[in-house]
């Protein structure tokens, strides 16, 4: 159609189009469609009632939504706790009684906001009140990097930097005039001298009991210093391999290991003792290296180690002196870190205004924990926090509040334990789980407190933990074993006290050890035959260790330390000395901790000078140690005899054999003869004969003449 024909109106096609458009004027919706559209529009603009919803097929959906959502309700415990807390806050505000926030009355709005913040803090972020247990970091890192230090890992060389995380199989190498420290996951520390190479061959933490650790280092070349701080349990050990020699520390020790250019391995025990194993051409030699002794092993010509005591000149090795000094600093660092960790994690202590809020938060949380087992777990966490708080209070000199918390801690643990014992018959799994958790908690504290000595305010916390460890032990045998083990720890404490110059304190600990051993042996006698054999086996093993520790104590000289040490312990000793002098001059009764010392001085009738004091103390200490040795040997004999009437178990026989093989500094420690009704133990200093009715100590063998004792086949 052209524009011309369109404008002229003469086209037929135009007429048809015009007609069609006119038809549209009369076009309309059917009645049905119109009604449907109306319903749609009305449903959208009117409130959709159930009927209209139903008209669109939503009725069942809405009903289902209502039905399902009605089931959604807050947890009953949460609901109740929140209400309780809200009402407490409400009452505090309503009463206008912000007892601890008196100044807020003037700034009510600000006060309310602040309290609201506190509320959020206490409720929403409730976890803030609950500290994490202070534990070792369970990582091994480089520290104090000086000079050229490299780590070889998976064929890659990494430049050694401070805090570099180390892994098992890492090789660490120092260059000329370089040094580095390695802090291990068990809190032990090793320092590498220049031109030294080591491999960390084992780094193990028992996942189910993190206080059990195993570290092994292989010295390829050079020299290393090892300070083992506080290993816990029978499994834990720190060992250094050097060629065909292995030095093992099981609790506390400091030792030096080196490999000379000529291939000679040298191990020196600097503090306490190390267990030494040397593989020679035809046998394995095992001995205990006591402080002050050195073993040298020719690695290219494997023979028995040459063991000798260090001469004073040799002992003045600068490397040793420096490391002993660094160890002191390290102890202080560890202590400070622990202190900071506790202080950083405990927000509130008794006496703080918000401590009551914390207690409230805990008690309500506990009250609404319906599961009894979960409740006990919460109680254990709370008890653990109490102990940490007690530690902090003792540290800050608030012994009174600390003691109160300690009593509460003991009571809570006792209560949990009672509950666990109560359900043991019905639910042994849960009872065991709970007891294991208690033990783990206590072990962590034991490790943390291992450096604490009796003159420390925290020693009360340590004692409380020890008491509970005995209480938690599952059976009579285990309880006895725990007591025996703790008795051994007293000897280690005595050793540390002597090193700090506190001979009197050491003497007390040794006496406490002797008493604890007597009690333990009495306990053993009361056990059933089967249990007794197991306990005797532990006792013999433990006593052998104790004898070694007593030997170390015998060689430890405390006197010089008193004068050299400028620390608080030195001051304590100075005060003690002064007090002793005064006591002697007035003739009044003696302070308990130095009673025996002063008595001896009075008997001698001499004027007490510092020098006399030291010598007398040393004499007394030697006497006490000697008595402890005799007692230990006697108790060993009694223990052996207590199972001798029966057919001894293989375990006991093995222990007896081990006793006979006990070796210290390359010399046999004792000879044991066992018959049906007689046990004879002979050492360099003692000859003990134990019969069923009497225990007889025969005349002492001259200790200056070491006897070579035939080992009982």
């Amino acid at each position, binding site marked *: 159609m052209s524009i011309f024909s369109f404008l002229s109106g003469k086209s037929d096609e135009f007429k048809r189009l015009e007609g069609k458009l006119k038809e549209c004027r009369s076009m309309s919706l059917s009645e049905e469609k119109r009604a449907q559209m109306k319903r749609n529009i009305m449903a959208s603009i009117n*409130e959709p009632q159930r009927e209209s919803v139903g008209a669109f097929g939503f009725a069942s959906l809405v009903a289902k939504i209502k039905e*399902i959502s009605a089931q959604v309700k807050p947890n009953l415990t949460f609901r109740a706790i929140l209400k309780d807390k*809200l009402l407490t806050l409400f009452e505090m505000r309503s009463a206008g009684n912000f007892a601890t926030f008196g100044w807020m009355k003037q700034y009510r709005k600000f006060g309310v906001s602040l309290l609201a913040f506190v509320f959020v803090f206490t409720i929403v972020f409730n976890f803030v009140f609950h500290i994490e247990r202070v534990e070792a970091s369970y990582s091994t890192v480089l520290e104090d990097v000086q000079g050229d230090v490299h780590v070889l890992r998976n064929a890659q060389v990494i430049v050694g930097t401070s805090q570099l995380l180390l892994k098992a199989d890492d090789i660490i190498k120092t260059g000329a005039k370089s040094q580095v420290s390695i802090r291990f996951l068990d809190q032990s520390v090793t320092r590498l001298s220049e031109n030294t190479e080591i491999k960390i061959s084992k780094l193990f933490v028992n996942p189910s009991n993190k206080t059990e650790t195993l570290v092994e280092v292989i010295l390829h070349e050079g020299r290393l210093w090892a300070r083992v701080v506080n290993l816990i349990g029978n499994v834990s050990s720190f060992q250094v391999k050097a060629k065909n020699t292995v030095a093992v520390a099981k609790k506390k020790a400091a030792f030096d290991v080196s490999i000379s250019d000529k291939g000679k391995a040298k191990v020196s025990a600097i503090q306490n003792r190390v267990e030494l194993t040397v593989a020679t051409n035809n046998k394995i030699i095992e001995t205990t290296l006591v402080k002050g002794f050195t073993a040298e092993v020719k690695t290219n010509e494997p023979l028995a180690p040459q063991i000798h005591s260090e001469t004073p000149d040799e002992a003045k090795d600068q490397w040793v002196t420096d490391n002993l000094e660094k160890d002191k600093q390290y102890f202080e660092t560890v202590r400070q870190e622990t202190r900071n960790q506790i202080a950083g994690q405990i927000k509130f202590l008794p006496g703080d205004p918000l401590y009551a809020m914390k207690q409230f938060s805990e008690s309500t949380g506990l009250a609404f924990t319906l599961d009894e087992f979960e409740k006990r777990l919460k109680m254990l966490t709370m008890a653990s926090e109490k102990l940490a708080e007690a530690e902090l209070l003792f540290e800050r000199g608030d012994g009174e509040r600390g003691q109160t918390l300690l009593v509460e801690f003991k009571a809570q643990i006792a209560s949990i334990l009672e509950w666990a014992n109560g359900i043991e018959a019905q639910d042994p799994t849960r009872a065991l789980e709970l007891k294991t958790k208690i033990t783990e908690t206590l072990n962590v504290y034991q490790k943390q407190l291992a450096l604490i000595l009796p003159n420390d305010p925290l020693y009360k916390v340590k004692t409380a933990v020890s008491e509970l460890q005995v209480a938690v032990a599952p059976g009579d045998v285990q309880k006895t074993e725990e007591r025996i083990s703790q008795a051994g720890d007293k000897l280690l404490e005595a050793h540390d006290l002597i090193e700090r110059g506190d001979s009197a304190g050491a003497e007390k600990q040794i006496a406490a050890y002797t008493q604890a051993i007597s009690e333990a042996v009495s306990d053993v006698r009361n056990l059933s035959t089967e249990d007794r054999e197991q306990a005797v086996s532990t006792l013999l093993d433990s006593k052998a260790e104790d004898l070694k520790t007593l030997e170390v104590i015998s060689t430890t000289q405390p006197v010089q330390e008193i004068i050299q040490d400028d620390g608080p312990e030195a001051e304590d000793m100075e005060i003690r000395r002064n007090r002793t002098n005064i006591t002697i001059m007035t003739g009044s009764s003696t302070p308990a901790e130095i009673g025996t010392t002063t008595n001896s001085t009075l008997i001698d009738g001499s004027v007490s000078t510092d020098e006399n004091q030291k010598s007398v103390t040393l004499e007394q200490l030697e006497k006490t140690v000697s008595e402890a040795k005799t007692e230990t040997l006697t108790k060993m004999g009694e223990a052996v005899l207590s199972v001798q009437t029966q057919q001894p178990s293989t375990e006991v026989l093995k222990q007896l054999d081990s006793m006979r093989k006990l070796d210290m500094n390359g010399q046999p420690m004792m000879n044991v003869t066992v018959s049906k009704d007689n046990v004879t133990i002979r050492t360099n200093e003692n000859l003990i004969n134990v019969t069923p009715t009497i225990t007889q100590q025969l005349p002492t063998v001259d200790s200056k003449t070491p006897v070579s004792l035939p080992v009982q086949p």
Partner: protein
Amino acid sequence: MNEKKPLQGSEIEELVIKSQCGNSEAFGKLYDIFIDSIYRYIYYRVNQGEAEDLTELVFLKTWENINQYKFDQKNFSSWIFRIAHNVVIDFYRAHRQDEELVETLHDERIEADTTNRAHRSLDNRILSESIGKLKDAYRQVLILKYINDFSNEEIAQITGRSQAALRILQFRALKHLRRILEDRGISQDEV
């Protein structure tokens, strides 16, 4: 809904007045009345893990501001839900990035699995997930209207929208929800 009944009466007003005068028992009753519905509102608007914390915050703010509530403005239930609404908005603002992440991580393969679709019926998990897929405006209206059982007038007070707009939103929200459910294999019959 049990807690809905007193909303219309003078009982709540009486409890609010007593609470403003320092009556803790009255405040406790208000708490009992509203705890379930506030929790439910938050439960379907944010993820379940946050519901308790945000519910606590709502009641904390209620406790803090109850003396500022005035009877001539809106009813108390609208007022407290307005607080809940604001708490949720604040939460969204603070966690926008996380929300996006959660949506991204949603595994669509499960939805496309016809075997799964064949055996599905509507339960709380599917409902809350499906509601979570709605646009926030739809979600909010749907929850207030059909889960918290509010009138449009009350919802208007809580959300600040006109009632006419709310009606359209409700209708569209239901339509979208039904479509989402169908996509997940929940047919009208299975509902």
